[in-house]
C-alpha cells in the first residue's frame, strides 16, 4: 500500500531538471523535501547557485507535475539553508551525468579554501567519452553556472564538467 506521502514524493522526485533533463531534481539533490498533510503537499527545492535562472521553471515543474498527479493543494518553497553542494548529486545522478558525456564533480572537492591559495587546483578528471585521465581545463566557466569546459588530450573531445561547490 503506497501512502499519499510516498506517492507525492515519487511524483516530485521524477521531475526532470530543465537544463539537464536526463537527470531528475532528486538526482541533483535539488529536491530537498516533500511533506503531505491531509492531501496538501509542500515541496522544498534548493537552488544550486545564487543566480540559477531556472528556479522558477523548477518550482513550476514540480507544482505542475504534482497537480497533474491529482494533488489539488500544492505549494513549492525554497530551502536555502543548508546551501546546495555538488556533493548532493546522488550516485545515480553521477552515473547519468557521465552517461550523457558530462564529467561528474569530484566528491568532497571544493574550490581551494582560504585566501592565500594561488593557482588552479589539479584534479584528476576522467574523460566521460573515452575514460582517459589525460584531460585539461579549457575554461573554469562554461555554458551554465554549474559547469566548466574541459578537453581530453587522448580522444581530443571537449566535454562539460559539473564544478565542485
Amino acid at each position: 500500500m503506497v501512502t499519499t506521502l510516498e506517492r507525492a514524493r515519487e511524483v516530485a522526485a521524477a521531475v526532470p531538471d530543465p537544463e539537464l533533463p536526463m537527470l531528475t531534481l532528486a538526482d541533483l539533490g535539488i529536491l530537498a523535501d516533500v511533506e503531505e498533510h491531509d492531501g496538501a503537499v509542500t515541496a522544498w527545492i534548493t537552488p544550486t547557485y545564487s543566480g540559477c535562472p531556472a528556479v522558477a521553471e523548477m518550482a513550476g515543474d514540480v507544482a505542475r507535475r504534482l497537480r497533474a498527479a491529482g494533488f489539488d493543494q500544492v505549494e513549492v518553497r525554497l530551502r536555502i539553508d543548508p546551501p546546495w553542494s555538488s556533493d548532493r548529486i546522488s550516485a545515480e545522478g553521477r552515473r547519468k551525468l557521465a552517461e550523457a558525456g558530462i564529467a561528474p564533480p569530484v566528491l568532497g572537492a571544493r574550490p581551494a579554501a582560504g585566501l592565500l591559495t594561488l593557482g588552479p587546483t589539479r584534479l584528476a578528471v576522467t574523460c566521460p567519452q573515452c575514460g582517459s585521465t589525460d584531460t585539461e581545463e579549457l575554461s573554469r566557466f562554461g555554458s551554465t553556472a554549474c559547469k566548466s569546459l574541459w578537453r581530453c588530450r587522448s580522444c581530443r573531445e571537449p566535454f562539460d564538467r559539473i564544478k565542485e561547490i
Partner: protein
Amino acid sequence: MTDDHVYLSLADAAGEPDGEARWAYGTGFADPLLGVDAAPPPGIDPADLAAYCLMLGDDALVLSQRLIQWITRAPELEEEVALANLGLDLLGQARRLLTRAGQLDGTGRNEDELAYWREDFEYRNVRLVELENGDFAQCVVRLLLFATAREELYRRLADHADPVLAAVAALGVKELAYHREYAQSWTLRLGDGTAHSRERMQAALDALWPWLDELFTPHEVELRLGVDPLDLREPVLASLALVLEEATLSLPEAAPRAYVNGRAGRHGVHTEALGPLLAELQVVARAHPGATW
C-alpha cells in the same frame, strides 16, 4: 523521458496563477526567497539589518551590471563567458539581499522596486564597484580586490544570527572563491607576463587601490550590527600582498580616496560613474512601468 516540454511551466511558475501575464522585464515572476521564513531574528533591529543587506546587495548588483557591460567586448570568448558567470552569481546574491532588505525595511518593496526605482543617492554600494570598466587589467584588478574582500566577509557572515543573510553568505562564499581564483590567475598571468601586460596591470592597480579602503571603513549600521569591516582588512591585505608579489606587481602606496564630509558610497555619496550605469539599468523599467508580455 516523458513527453514533458521542460519549459512548459514557464507560463505557470510557482506563485503565479495560471495564464497570468508576465512582467516584461525584471524578475517579477519569481521571488528569490519564495517560501523562506521572513521573520526578523530576535534582538536585531530590522531597520539596521535591512540597511546592511541593501549595502551588500547594491555592491553585488552594481558590480554585476559592470561585468555584463563586458559582454561582446571581452578579449576572448572564454573570458566573456567567465565574466557573464561571475555577473550572474553576483546578480543572484543581489536578488536575495535586496529581497531581504525589502522584507525588513517596513516599506514592502520587492527586489525590482529597489533595483529600478531608487535614485543614485539611495544606492549604498562602495564606490569601487561603480567605477567605469576601463581596460581588462582594471576588470581583473577590481575583481581581485572585491572578490578577496567579499569572500572573507561572506565566510564570517555564514553564521550570522539572521538565517537568511547567513544562507546567502554560505552559498556566496563558495561562489566568491571561484571569482577570487579567476582574478588571481589573470593577475599572475598578466602581472608576471610581458612588459606591456605588467605595465597595464600596475597602472590598473595604482588606479583602483585607493578605492579599496572603503570596503574596510565601518558604517554606523555595521558597528551596531557587530559586523565591523575593519576586521577584514588584515587578512585581505595579506592575501593581496601575496598575490601581487607572485605577480611581480608593486603594492601601491597611494592614500585612500577621501570621503565627502565623512560620507561615501555607504551613505549614498557616489562618483559620477554611478548615474549613467543606473540610467542604463533602469531605463526600460521606467519607460514602461508595469509592462507585461
